[in-house]
């Protein structure tokens, strides 16, 4: 370990006498610069977003037009996925759902939040030249990329995608005779294991960097909220991911080597898979939301021109979510056949974990209150995040109540919940953050007009797609059903399914606007100034994009992260590295 650090530190940074040019390979492929790695993560996960989205389009197509051949490409698709005529078949549908969720969770939202913004922002925001272990940082990206390729490669095996859901409940997942996609499921296990290694490498880096490499004056309680959020997220990753790795390993052995961890008739325990999976899975969903909360908090403060309301409460709330997140996993298993007493207990802890989310919501309202709000695209997404998260969070309360979960468990009500927190929450936060930090990453501004168009359309189509899913769920429509029209009690809701699907296509198309804007701006966008949003945190004191090694002179930090509109100052923001002027009346807190 030490060797690599010495290597990457010494020779490339000092560059006093002779300027050490990095080779193409070291600059773009195996780069150990955290900013480049962040951008590698960004490109890769946006690519995976396209794939995950396309799979979702397949899902929605089938639910609206089951049995009808997919236009244009139907006949080109492999036979595990479609019939000879080109219509999606049930097993293929299960594969689509499984991989849609796997891609979105492990290859899109997690890397976008942790890989992209974790890498890009942590060193810049705490005033460090790079991550503590640049070698492992680069390794993390390539492991992640490999895991993506491995997971998706099951598209090309004859039995196709894994088809047991992203939760891969055993014993279905543990036996090729049951699930019909032994190869795909095995690739899933391997992919998830490698993905876990990438996450752990990243997490170790973030924790070490944040604890050890802050610039002078950057006390823990002066850290910008995204850094706090990523710090807590990294701890969750560190402790939750290995449990999934262990479970995936056992599943792999069951599948391929005849062990019987999850095989009931050979004394294995199917429910053990669920406990292990959700012990990881629930912290995972907070891994998917906490960084977004941090990013959104910052954008709300910047564009309201106000200090964040209740900074410490925000930090404590996130810490509480982190701790409680480890004791609520059983709420996914209320009706799984586990002991009823446990359901009671997990219901209680789940109710408690909603409290810190409530605290955060109210503090966001407090931040907007009394502000001077600028409606940039980034801000629009951040504002929408709060509303969408509240909807998704409140629907969580229904499920946390055990009797109600008896009715809505495993229906589209859950699917609605998932997408409100993950798309309306995490992904909206991510979109906002991309608009916000794009100038710093690429040195160009993104187009605001098309940004707004993207925002309005996705906001609209998002709600039209996912809100009716609550109703579908209440109507009794189970998840993961390839053809709802086969059920008498679902016949009436078929029109609603078609409506949802058309909205989903709209949502897909509006996302394309974002992609075009993203690529176009990289070449044609106006040059970005150092600090386009008049922001206080350290990354904005650097050129856009910052040079290799980040800070020419180590900054000294004098203030908290969000000193906006300080009375007595000429400008309405006080950068963290500037001592407050005599006249400014900075509140001590």
């Amino acid at each position, binding site marked *: 370990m030490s060797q690599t650090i010495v290597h990457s530190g010494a020779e490339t940074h000092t560059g006093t006498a002779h300027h050490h040019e990095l080779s193409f390979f070291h600059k773009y492929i195996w780069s150990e610069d955290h900013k480049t790695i962040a951008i590698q993560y960004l490109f890769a996960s946006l690519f995976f977003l396209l794939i995950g989205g396309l799979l979702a389009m397949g899902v929605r197509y089938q639910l609206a037009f089951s049995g009808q051949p997919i236009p244009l490409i139907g006949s080109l698709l492999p036979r595990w996925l479609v019939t000879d005529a080109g219509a999606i078949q049930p097993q293929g549908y299960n594969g689509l759902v499984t991989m849609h969720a796997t891609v979105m969770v492990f290859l899109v939202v997690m890397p976008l939040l942790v890989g992209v913004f974790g890498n890009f922002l942590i060193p810049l925001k705490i005033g460090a030249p790079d991550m503590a272990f640049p070698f492992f940082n680069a390794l993390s990206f390539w492991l992640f990329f490999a895991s993506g390729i491995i997971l998706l490669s099951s598209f090309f095996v004859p039995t196709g995608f894994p088809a047991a859901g992203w939760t891969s409940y055993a014993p279905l997942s543990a036996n090729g005779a049951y699930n019909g996609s032994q190869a795909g499921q095995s690739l899933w296990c391997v992919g998830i294991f490698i993905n876990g290694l990438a996450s752990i490498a990243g997490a170790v880096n973030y924790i070490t960097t944040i604890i050890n490499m802050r610039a002078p004056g950057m006390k823990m309680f002066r850290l910008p909220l995204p850094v706090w959020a990523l710090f807590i997220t990294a701890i969750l990753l560190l402790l939750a991911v290995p449990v999934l790795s262990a479970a995936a390993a*056992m599943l792999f052995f069951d599948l391929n080597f005849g062990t019987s961890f999850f095989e009931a008739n050979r004394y294995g325990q199917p429910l053990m898979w669920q406990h292990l999976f959700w012990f990881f899975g629930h912290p995972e969903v907070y891994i998917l939301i906490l960084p977004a909360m941090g990013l959104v908090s910052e954008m709300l403060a910047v564009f309201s021109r106000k200090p964040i309301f209740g900074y410490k409460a925000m930090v404590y709330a996130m810490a509480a979510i982190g701790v409680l997140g480890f004791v609520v996993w059983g709420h996914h298993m209320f009706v799984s056949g586990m002991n009823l007493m446990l359901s009671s207990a997990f219901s209680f802890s789940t109710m408690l974990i909603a409290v810190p989310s409530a605290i955060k919501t109210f503090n966001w309202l407090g931040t907007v209150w009394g502000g001077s709000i600028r409606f940039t695209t980034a801000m629009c997404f951040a504002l929408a995040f709060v509303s969408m998260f509240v909807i998704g969070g409140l629907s969580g309360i229904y499920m946390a109540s055990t009797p109600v979960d008896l009715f809505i468990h495993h229906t589209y009500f859950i699917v609605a919940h998932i997408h409100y927190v993950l798309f309306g929450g995490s992904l909206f936060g991510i979109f906002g953050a991309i608009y916000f930090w794009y100038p710093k990453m690429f040195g160009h501004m993104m187009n605001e007009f098309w940004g707004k168009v993207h925002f309005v359309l996705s906001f609209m189509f998002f709600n039209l797609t996912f809100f009716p899913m609550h109703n579908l769920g209440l109507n009794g429509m189970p998840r993961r059903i390839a053809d709802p029209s086969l059920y008498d009690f679902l016949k009436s809701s078929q029109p609603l399914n078609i409506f949802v699907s058309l909205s989903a296509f709209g949502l897909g198309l509006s996302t394309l606007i974002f992609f075009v804007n993203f690529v176009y701006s990289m070449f044609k966008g106006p040059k970005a100034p150092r600090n386009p949003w008049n922001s206080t945190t350290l990354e904005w004191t650097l050129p856009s994009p910052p040079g290799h090694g980040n800070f020419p002179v180590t900054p000294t930090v004098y203030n908290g992260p969000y000193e906006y509109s300080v009375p007595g100052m000429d400008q309405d923001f006080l950068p963290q590295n500037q001592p407050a002027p005599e006249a400014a009346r900075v509140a001590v807190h």
Partner: protein
Amino acid sequence: MSASAIAIDSVPHKAGPNVVRFGMITFLASEAMLFSGLICGYMVLRAGAGAAWQMPEGLKGGFVLVKTIAATLCLIASSFTLHFSEARLIKGTRYGKLLLALTIVLGTLFLCNQADEWRNLFHEGFWFNSAGIMGSCFFVLTGFHGCHVAIGVILLIASLIRALTGNITPTKHGFLECTGLYWHFVDIVWVFLFTILYIL
């Protein structure tokens, strides 16, 4: 991106030994969760299997126990030899390399015993896919741990090479220290595994 060369006067951009240590300990927390997951699974399965939990003959006999205890002692002893070797190598006093080599030998002995045990069990017909749930658990736990020991031995050899080429100095010993932390961790895990697999 734009690689403008700038003189860096900045916070520790070379992670010093302390930072490396910190990182290693963080990583070991993750490893601990990996084994916790496996061990919890083991306990649940064992509790659930009841009478179907069959210890194979090859793990019962007194001789096997003696052998395994000997291997366990090897591993524990290797932690001590490594500890003293580390201190000496860093200070540059004598016998550091010798103790490190001894550690490698002890670790290898442990691995050999493990391989031998697996071989015996195999001949007895007790294998991960043929010995019921106890077999699944036994081989996965010892297998995961064995892999860790093997990686540890490789790290120890790498450290020894560093020591021999003069790459371990009072200011440069992060690698050695991390190897040490890792090795102690692997030892502690074994103590747990030994207890639940052979004694309880």
